[in-house]
């Protein structure tokens, strides 16, 4: 990625503590204009805190926050060109749908006609044209969510922050809102920063994902990059299903785990460095014993709609999760097969910069 464009938001070594509890430590990242970003991480990892720092509801103890290249640490929330969609919608219960959406434009003292046109445009965008005069109490959860989106967008922000906006919706509605949100972002061309702890949602929606844990960004990248090349145990475990075993990187392109050597595609580590090895369940195949790289016994099997999730145990007692299109029978001994490209090796405590540099060094050529 050659970043010639000025980032719209930049964090430089931002830190924050509440009563001696460090919440964020040295957080640095850049957000480019016009993309769909996701902050993904478990509860308490600091996702909302980052949004609150961007919107100005919280102020940083350390570091700089830049907006369009200018430091905004001391700009109050009401003056930032950022708006937020809150998890519980936070709609104004004493106002109609129209007045909720018109709240921002009215504060700007725009002419009445302009406000009316803006509100109608926004309600059309979220497909709620007919609901102008409804009271907030008369809306369903999904409709409230749409009003919240329209209200935040009516202010024409450069960046829209969305804090777990879909988590209160049922599965079907959530899927539908995911694609609508994505479509709205593409259509308006503004930056979305979306918070979720649902990894599937993050992978499906984002141009770029930040994985957070414990107040730190663990890894950032495109969904495919992060899925294929997780930097550490936490990311591998958090994103998708994975089998993680300990191993030793004997030399470039040769790794040893469960007592055997395997060819792989990773390089740039010290000889005989202890590592962790990730194999994704969908990359593993169950084959006749003689064709497999490992011999395993099927321990459990459950039907998951479009695949069978199978748990198999190798002779060393390691558990392997496998996604298979065909059923097996519990107790059967079968071969487990995978290719060099399915093996992903992770070093302990490798920083993101070192990780990127190392990947670059042997993949770049």
């Amino acid at each position, binding site marked *: 990625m050659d970043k010639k464009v000025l980032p719209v938001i930049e964090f430089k070594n931002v830190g924050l503590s509440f009563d001696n509890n460090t919440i964020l430590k040295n957080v640095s990242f850049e957000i480019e204009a016009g993309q769909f970003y996701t902050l993904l991480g478990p509860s308490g990892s600091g996702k909302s805190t980052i949004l609150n720092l961007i*919107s100005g*509801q919280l102020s940083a103890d350390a570091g700089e926050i830049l907006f369009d290249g200018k430091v905004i640490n001391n700009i109050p*929330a*009401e*003056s930032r060109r*950022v*708006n*937020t969609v*809150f*998890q*519980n919608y*936070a*709609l*104004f*219960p*004493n106002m109609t749908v129209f007045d909720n959406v018109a*709240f*921002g434009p009215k*504060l*700007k003292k725009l002419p009445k006609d302009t406000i009316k046109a803006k509100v109608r445009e926004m309600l059309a965008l979220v497909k709620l044209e007919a609901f102008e005069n409804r009271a907030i*109490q008369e809306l369903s959860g999904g409709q409230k969510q749409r009003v919240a989106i329209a*209200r*935040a967008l009516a*202010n024409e922000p450069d960046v829209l922050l969305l804090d777990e906006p879909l988590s209160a919706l049922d599965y079907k509605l959530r899927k539908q809102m995911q694609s609508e949100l994505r479509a709205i972002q593409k259509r308006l061309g503004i930056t979305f920063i979306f918070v979720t702890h649902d990894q599937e949602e993050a992978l499906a929606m984002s141009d770029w994902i930040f994985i957070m844990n414990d107040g730190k960004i663990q890894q950032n990248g495109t969904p495919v990059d992060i899925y294929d090349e997780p930097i550490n145990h936490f990311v591998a475990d958090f994103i998708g299903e994975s089998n993680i075993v300990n191993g030793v990187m004997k030399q470039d392109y040769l790794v040893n785990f469960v007592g055997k050597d395997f060819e792989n595609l990773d390089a740039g580590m010290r000889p005989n460095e202890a590592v962790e090895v990730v194999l994704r369940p969908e990359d593993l195949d169950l084959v006749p014993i003689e064709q497999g790289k490992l011999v395993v016994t099927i321990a459990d099997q459950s039907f998951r709609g479009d695949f069978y999730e199978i748990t198999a145990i190798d002779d060393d007692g390691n558990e392997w999760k496998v996604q298979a299109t065909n059923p097996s029978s519990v107790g059967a001994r079968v071969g487990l097969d995978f290719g060099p490209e399915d093996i992903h090796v992770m070093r302990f405590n490798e920083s993101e910069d070192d990780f990127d540099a190392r990947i670059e060094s042997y993949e770049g050529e």
Partner: protein
Amino acid sequence: MKDNSRAKIFFAIPYISWLAVFVIVPIGLLIYQSLTNVQGSFTLANFHEFITSNVYLPMAFNSVFYALIITLITFMISFPAAYVLSHLKHRQLWLMLIILPTWINVLLKTYAFLGLLSKSGIINQLFSTFGLGTHNLLFNHVSFIFVAVYLELPFMLLPIYNSINEIDPDILKASRDLGAKPINTLSQLVFPLSINGIKSGIQAVFIPSLSLFMLTTLIGGNKVMTLGSAIELHFIVTQNWHMGSTIAIILILAMAVTMYFTRERGKRK
């Protein structure tokens, strides 16, 4: 179903008896007294006198006027105070400090003010120490209003505080997020969303203020004549229970009117 409703009636017996003995019967007696004269015959003369003599109407006006002023001042102190309070860190402590004085008997607090404000009281001692001389701080309209406001303040503040506290903090965050200055948030969200608390506060202050009588004597030095003091006068001094009851009935009507105008409207779940 039947058993259930019987059980309900059973549990309601203590309350209904209480209501009958201490509310319905006394009001009945008041009405009876107000509609009779010394000879015990029915008459509207008491009400007629209330309206035509030039004693009671000014008194009624006075009562409403002072109650309004007391309500207004307590509101103007309480609303901003409640808003600030709801944002404080140790609000339980601050709240305690407001509630605590309400546990002390009103009469005791009133006497405390007599001590504070009298000619030889602490305030005047301070004044004279600084060479400002001593002043008559008691027995005037201002001292009456001041002490009444002091006594009534918690009853305005607490309901307002409670309803402000119930506002989802995200709503206030959203308002700021959309560009609202604190004054916009206050007028467009906090005020309308705490209107029921404000109404309760107004009820809790305005209605008792209509019938203040102890304060009028002790602190107001009888410079302030209200309907409350008139009732006291008729029942205790002149022993004219018929006129006293008439004033009481009119006061009750005034309270009912106040309740009507400050009732909760459009209650939503």
